[in-house]
């Protein structure tokens, strides 16, 4: 392959540079290649195609025609978009804040269980909901949420409280219903992640603190939480993505309309409707890019808040 002629010198220089490059970086590039190759083949086209579509008007059947930034401009004036934005952020925040806090406290407690067997059972119990399919979830929870024969209302009325009209009325209870289901499904997942983080913490730190007279809550706040920051960040970013793209729970509970007053209509549900319900593939694509931007912004804010933006 190498040409020993003088005339070919520059080329040989180039060739050897390439060879040196390959020797030095061949392994890492080969190792990361599968991801980028498969992504270019299968991931890039859909993403670029939806980008293209976001500037067009297309019902999925007829010819697409170019509309420029109309789809993006319409986002700002579309009342349904803003309503679904509000619903999504409301559900995401109200579901995640108590869920992550509870998960953290639970993880701390479960970590204290010394019997290995018992701890395993507890962990598995908490993790179960994360492996369910939405069909079963829908069925079980619609029975819990029944207005007249529902489990929850049965309990409420038997202790003398008035029953909840989950799906009707002002639509107020639609969001709590979704939030409860969401917490049920993902509390265990987050608890396990925190627990995993906790088990990486040296327990002698706790004991030293206890000897110094620290209370349990002081230990929790001063030692556990700071050491868990990377794990918390991980769950926050995962929650941001999961919260903003929340689809299954409102879909199975409130249906595609989002229920009374559209109180359960989330961004992802609205997006699904626009594409497959109403055949607005162009608008749906613009919509998807708006959601993507939102996720990126919130993730970056999370990173900054925890001081990771500058570190890397």
């Amino acid at each position, binding site marked *: 392959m190498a040409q020993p002629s003088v005339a070919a010198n520059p080329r040989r220089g180039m060739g050897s540079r390439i060879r040196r490059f390959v020797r030095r970086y061949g*392994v*890492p*590039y*080969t*190792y*990361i290649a599968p991801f*980028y190759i*498969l*992504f270019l083949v*299968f991931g890039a086209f*859909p*993403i670029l*195609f939806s980008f293209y579509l976001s500037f067009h008007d297309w019902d999925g059947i007829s010819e697409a025609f170019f509309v420029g930034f109309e789809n993006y401009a319409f986002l700002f004036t579309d009342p349904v978009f803003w309503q679904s934005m509000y619903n999504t952020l409301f559900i995401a925040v109200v579901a995640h804040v108590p869920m992550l806090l509870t998960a953290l406290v*639970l993880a701390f*407690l*479960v970590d204290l269980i*010394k019997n290995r067997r018992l701890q*395993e059972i507890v*962990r*598995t119990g*908490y993790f179960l*909901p*994360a*492996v*369910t*399919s939405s*069909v*079963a979830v829908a*069925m079980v929870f619609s029975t819990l949420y029944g207005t007249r*024969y529902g*489990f929850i209302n049965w309990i409420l009325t038997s202790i003398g409280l008035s029953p909840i009209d989950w799906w009707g009325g002002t639509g107020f209870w639609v969001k709590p219903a979704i939030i409860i289901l969401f917490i*049920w499904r993902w509390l*265990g997942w987050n608890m*396990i992640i925190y*627990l*995993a*983080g906790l*088990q*990486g*913490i*040296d*327990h002698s730190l706790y*004991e030293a603190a*206890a*000897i110094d007279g620290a209370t*349990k809550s002081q230990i929790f706040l001063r030692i556990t939480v700071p050491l868990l*920051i*990377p*794990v918390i960040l*991980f769950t926050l970013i995962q929650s941001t*993505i999961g919260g903003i793209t929340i*689809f299954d729970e409102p879909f199975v509970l409130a249906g595609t309309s989002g229920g009374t007053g559209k109180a359960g209509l989330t961004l*992802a549900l609205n*997006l*699904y409707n626009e*594409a497959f319900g109403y055949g607005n*593939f162009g608008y749906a694509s613009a919509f*998807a890019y708006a959601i*993507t931007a939102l*996720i990126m912004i919130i993730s970056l804010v999370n990173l900054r808040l925890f001081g990771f933006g500058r570190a890397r």
Partner: protein
Amino acid sequence: MAIGKTAREQTGKEPSATAKIPLRSIVLWALVTLGILFSAFPFYWMFVLATQTAQKVFSFPPPLWFGAEALSNYREVLEVIPFWRNFMNSAVISVTQTALVLLFSAMGGYAFAMYDFPGKRQLFVFMLATMMIPGIVQVVPWFMMMRWLGWVNDFKGLIIPGAVSAFGVFWMRQYIEGSVPHELLDAARIDGCPEFTILFRVVISLLKPALGALGIMTFMGSWNNFMQPLILLRETSRFTLPVALSLLKGDPYRGTNYAVLMAGTAMAVLPILTVFVFSAKRFMAGLTAGAIKG
């Protein structure tokens, strides 16, 4: 970590703070127990409902103990869908996909963690960014590609595009950065181990816990995947379990026989539960080591 455990085992006591406030800890333990009931009850109930007749499912007060219809509901499921065939389809797809994801994630994560190369930062950020695009609108162009490739009704269409995972690479990089020392690589190089094979000969055995956790997460995602197999697969005998199960919802004008639906769902959830229960230890170990390293 190991030191902490040993210390705790040696003392054989919980931190003394616990002992001083028994009432508060009783309340806390009650909460832990309540949380478990809250998490597990719907499952128990699903299995209970799977053993009832259709009418019994909706009787009031609801059934709280197992009925006698398990076998007949099971037979009913088999009458509507080729359950075991669908089960095998799901298993083949999930196992193959999981194996590929593990391989490529280990490779990618290893490269990002242990090597420096031009464009590393940009490539890594780009990869993370791909995680943030919602998949719903990509269904149509994805299906177009499947047609071009002739992969409609073919498991390849589910396995190959799903063989890599940005999350997986990210996950393995986090783990490797925190747990594989560079000296190990140097030692292997000195021993004359070719650069390309260090990962597979030396490093891979250290990655088992993280691979185990990633494996379970991938397997779960693949097993519960609905939209893509629905669009791609054509014949009932090629369906994956979730798609086949939704056939149990039946006709729009006849409502759903929830007892049979529950039976099918329980049959489908059982293997996942089994996999999880039996691998919980490894899963936890992997998370412990993987998650903590920011």
